[in-house]
């Protein structure tokens, strides 16, 4: 019996056991949901946020944001394709993952998430992108030769109709899908919040505000990610940015971050004021285990500093270059802060005992499946996918190749 557990697990758990403060239930030494489950809501949040940003153009006719509409959609897709991977990799039996779709348990939040994910990917995102790009794909198929002709033909599903009526239909269809897409994006990330928020055994998670806090932070991270990529691309390509667009995105980011801040503040104020049984251990948790990641990184660097930057940009009349730099810094800080927020929720919720009498520790593995290396790879993968998507579906091809048809 003894020695049957892998050496690396034994070392990790022995180390974590040595770091325990106070009393914990003995099975609580192991951190059940580790770094990959931090990455998962981070990626999903960016998907939902980027899509909501895109929907501003289609549904609310915010014309200033039009230049990054396609960028936002492709960002959502790139992150969506990776979002399920950390979940899959973290399973004890990844080969049985299909069971979630074939024999789902209706009472399980996690089982239903599988369907929400699939619906969002296949029912919303891919169809929306297809309608948006159909015209371009038809033209690209006409103008290419050999293999690429076939590829573009296949991507356009061999449609050829580019008559005004057909294009009007594309436009209408993509608008309708966006309208369905907004509640779906809300559902997607609100649901991730529900997976945590519905765990009554864990007071750090079990809050009715959790889905809505997750949703708002998702919107913040999605907008910040699109902003980050937009500025980065302009630097790499040495192109001028559309400052009107950037300012508008900055405004939305500011509004989203204020709402997010208000909601999270409400959550903490509510907990502190109600001062339930768990408040003692949760205070210790924040003071002893999460001070840096919560107070310094999430709250100060990830929220208050960017909030200040975004407010300053609106009040002070900075020149274009400085504004660009400030937006870029704000987006990087926000992305860091939201990652920290996911960490504080997922890992934080597993650093105190459900006996409310002690604190655990988490030692992240550097290599292996559930490790830092895998997490970094999963965070880098969406960017690689995005590069491929830019090649296959150039966002600004129409402006250059069919300027009359560009809308």
């Amino acid at each position, binding site marked *: 019996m003894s020695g049957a557990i892998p050496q690396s697990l034994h070392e990790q*758990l022995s180390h974590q056991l040595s770091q325990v403060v106070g009393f*914990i239930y003995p099975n609580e030494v192991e951190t059940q949901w580790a770094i990959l489950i931090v990455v998962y809501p981070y990626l999903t949040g960016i998907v939902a946020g980027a899509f909501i940003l895109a929907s501003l153009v289609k549904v609310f006719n915010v014309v200033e944001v039009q230049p990054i509409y396609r960028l936002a959609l492709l960002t959502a897709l790139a992150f969506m394709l990776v979002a399920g991977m950390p979940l899959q990799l*973290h399973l004890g039996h990844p080969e*049985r993952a299909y069971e979630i779709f074939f024999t789902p348990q209706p009472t399980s939040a996690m089982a239903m998430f599988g369907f929400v994910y699939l619906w969002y990917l296949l029912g919303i995102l891919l169809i929306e992108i297809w309608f948006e790009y159909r015209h371009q794909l038809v033209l690209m198929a006409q103008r290419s030769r050999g293999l690429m002709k076939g590829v573009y033909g296949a991507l356009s599903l061999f449609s050829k109709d580019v008559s005004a009526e057909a294009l009007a239909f594309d436009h209408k269809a993509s608008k309708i899908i966006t309208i369905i897409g907004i509640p779906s994006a809300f559902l997607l990330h609100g649901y991730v919040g529900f997976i945590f928020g519905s765990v009554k055994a*864990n007071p750090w998670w079990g809050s009715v505000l959790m889905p809505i806090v997750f949703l708002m932070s998702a919107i913040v991270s999605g907008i910040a990610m699109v902003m980050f990529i937009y500025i980065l691309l302009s630097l790499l390509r040495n192109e001028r940015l559309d400052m009107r667009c950037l300012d508008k995105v900055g405004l939305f980011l500011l509004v989203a971050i204020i709402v997010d801040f208000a909601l999270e503040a409400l959550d903490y104020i509510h907990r502190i004021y109600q001062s339930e049984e768990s408040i003692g251990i949760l205070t210790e948790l924040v003071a002893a285990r999460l001070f840096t990641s919560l107070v310094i990184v999430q709250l100060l660097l990830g929220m208050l500093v960017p909030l200040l930057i975004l407010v300053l940009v609106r009040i002070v009349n900075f020149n274009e270059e400085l504004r660009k730099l400030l937006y870029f810094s704000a987006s990087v800080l926000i992305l860091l802060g939201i990652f920290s927020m996911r960490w504080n929720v997922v890992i934080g919720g597993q650093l105190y005992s459900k006996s409310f009498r002690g604190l655990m520790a988490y030692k992240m593995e550097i290599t292996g499946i559930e490790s830092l290396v895998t997490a970094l790879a999963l965070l880098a993968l969406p960017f690689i996918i995005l590069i491929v998507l830019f090649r296959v579906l150039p966002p600004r091809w129409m402006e250059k190749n069919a300027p009359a048809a560009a809308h």
Partner: protein
Amino acid sequence: MNKREFLKDAILFFPAAATLQALAPTAEGKAESAKTPPDYDATRHWYGMGIDVDKCIGCNRCVEACKAENDVPDEPFFFRTWIERYQIRQNGETTVECISTRAAPPEQAEPEDPTVVRTFFVPKLCNQCAHPPCVQVCPVGATFQTQDGVVLVDAERCIGCRYCIQACPYGARYLNPKTRTADKCTFCYHRITEGLLPACVEVCPTEARIFGDLKGRADRLVRFHRVNPISVLKPDLNTEPKVLYARLDGEVR
């Protein structure tokens, strides 16, 4: 939708429905996965366990018996049952220790601490909740409640997502590193359906654990319930535990 499209969809629909139909029995195959003797009728039982806190001497034999009987890894990170020691001081301060994770019993008795007003041991295990949160959250129905009220895990079906471990308020579950599936106390289901006692109950030298059937008329557990003031752990979570503690101190969570 035109006629052709309708027919195409219809042609696809029926094989898909048939596939789902074929999968349905495995989805409901919970009863089969808990192997029971042929003449065993689960509907006639509703199992529970009584813990007489005053009788527990903290010898840890139940923990050892459980590990041996159920092939629980020896390492001090995985337990189906464990013993907690409580020390309550004059000023109300409480110290708790899990004595089951100790490498070896202390060689010398600890010096007497005059500020300690009371010391006692509390055996812990899965509460076999009548309203189990772990079963509610399992995405594939791998963990389930039998008709006789025992919560089990089907290791053939569990995908190892660990949601149930998060959902258990009592820390009673762990991920078995050998099977990579969730694991927990089964009340020794393989023994109780044969009419035997769970291993921990069998070895307890002081009869601090009373196993029984809450549907039985003259059952020991029913009598235990009748004669003792009973509490359960974390009643506010509405999990309705079937592990009943007699004269439990309010400090125990």
